[in-house]
């Protein structure tokens, strides 16, 4: 415990010696060439697609920036729909019916051809999930935490009897996942390439085929842009922009905040919200072997029946990845679907493996509760 906070203190000291990083800033220490790629990637990230340049025929947004705009790379107020079918123990992502991402908009040509305003909801779905747009700050750092670190934090059989059973999710090919609210996607690269296809239906060399319309072929003539609809270079630049987005510097803690940081530890929040993680090797020095404030173990935890929605990979309906606590002070909605409008509500909605920490939070004196919230709002 002392070592953990020691690492955080060292990290904060290091951060304190640098100019504070604002939301949307690049990582400190990028080379000129990397900074150039960050700037050029931002242009692609902020661009708006049309049907002629690859948008649709189904889509959730017409550009990355529509959902991650506040500021560039941050959060938006969009909520999207996911659907899968859970037939225990197997999770069917309902690809044959258009899942798991159910796009909420159609291009005019698709609307004219099929008379639909959104992708049909899969008839075989056993659950519907609402998903807010995640912030994308610091994702390049999370991408580089070695799998061995995640596995070291895992305790699927609860051998330490603390009631918390972290376990990794797996992608469809068996690799350990870490991105997305269910930790389904193994790498940032795939998350970004997949987002072009799943959110905008913009094909790329890494996902060169369009999605069917609820499992049925796309009508002729409604997808005018030839595949792939963006180049490898545009995809690479966008990936670099996201990879190089820095996590914003935590605010300087006052007396309440420092007390709240202690309370965070005392009531057991840091069992899952691991304060500091360290990246592994990388060709980018600014990302290589860096400790950073992550506040996550990137593992799945059963969060109780009240939060349960869809399954995904090995994640059962109630399983969610520990959310990294990055840029909390910029958030107006909390939890995977944005149902909590305050941090207090978000903590009180923790169930399952989080119920112990929740109960200890609820039992705190009002001053300690306020101190904990002050600490979280510094992140």
């Amino acid at each position, binding site marked *: 415990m002392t070592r953990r906070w020691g690492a955080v203190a060292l990290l904060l000291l290091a951060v304190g010696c640098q100019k504070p990083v604002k939301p949307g800033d690049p990582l400190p220490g990028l080379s000129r060439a990397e900074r150039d790629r960050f700037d050029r990637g931002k242009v692609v990230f902020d661009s708006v697609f049309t049907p002629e340049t690859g948008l649709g025929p189904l889509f959730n947004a017409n550009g990355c920036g529509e959902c991650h705009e506040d500021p560039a790379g941050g959060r938006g107020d969009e909520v999207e729909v996911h659907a899968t079918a859970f037939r225990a*123990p*197997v999770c*069917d*992502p309902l*690809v*044959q019916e258009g*899942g*798991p*991402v159910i796009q909420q908009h159609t291009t005019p040509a698709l609307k004219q051809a099929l008379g639909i305003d959104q992708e049909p909801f899969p008839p075989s779905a056993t659950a519907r999930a609402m998903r807010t747009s995640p912030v994308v700050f610091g994702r390049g750092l999370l991408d580089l935490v070695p799998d061995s670190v995640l596995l070291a934090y895992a305790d699927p059989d609860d051998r330490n009897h603390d009631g918390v059973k972290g376990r990794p999710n*797996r992608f*469809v*090919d*068996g*690799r*350990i996942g870490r*991105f*997305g609210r269910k930790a*389904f*996607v193994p790498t940032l690269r*795939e*998350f*970004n*390439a*997949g*987002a*072009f*296809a*799943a959110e905008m239906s913009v094909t790329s060399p*890494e*996902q060169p*085929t369009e*999605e069917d319309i609820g499992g049925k072929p796309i009508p002729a003539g409604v997808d005018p842009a030839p595949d792939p609809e963006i180049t490898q270079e545009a995809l690479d630049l966008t990936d670099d922009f996201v990879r190089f987005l820095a996590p914003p510097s935590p605010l300087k803690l006052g007396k309440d905040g420092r007390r709240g940081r202690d309370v965070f530890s005392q009531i057991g929040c840091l069992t899952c919200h691991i304060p500091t993680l360290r990246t592994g090797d990388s060709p980018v020095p600014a990302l290589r072997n860096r400790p950073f404030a992550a506040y996550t173990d990137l593992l799945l935890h059963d969060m109780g029946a009240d939060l349960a929605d869809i399954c995904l990979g090995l994640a059962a309906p109630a399983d969610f990845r520990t959310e990294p606590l990055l840029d909390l002070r910029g958030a107006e909605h909390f939890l995977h679907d944005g149902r909590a409008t305050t941090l207090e509500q978000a903590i009180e909605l923790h169930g399952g493996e989080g119920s112990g920490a929740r109960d200890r939070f609820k039992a705190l004196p009002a001053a300690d509760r306020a101190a904990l919230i002050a600490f979280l709002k510094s992140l």
Partner: protein
Amino acid sequence: MQRHIRTAALTVILLVPFLTSAPADWDALNSAQAATSYTYRGTIRAVNSRTGTLELITGVGMSLRLVRMTTAATTRLVATGAAPRVGDLKPGDVVRAECRRTAAGLVADRIEKLAAGTP
């Protein structure tokens, strides 16, 4: 003149085997090019051992795709410690499938059942 005759004879001797065997080789080459091979890694969604068909979920990030393939008598199935049959595969199994595209669709040449977490 003698030199020209000798060169022509040598050319004929060297070319005849190529010219006589070429059509067969070209056919083989062309059919090999048509049957481009594909490798997919993914989770089995459905398997029908009677028809020998297999549905595999693959994808990039949250963008998932369904790949349908058939097995043939020549399809090799591989797993650690055993040689499974198509009927031994079940939904949720993670596999690597090497396929080729034919006029009838994708045909699997080799299916390897992977242990969960295989990198």
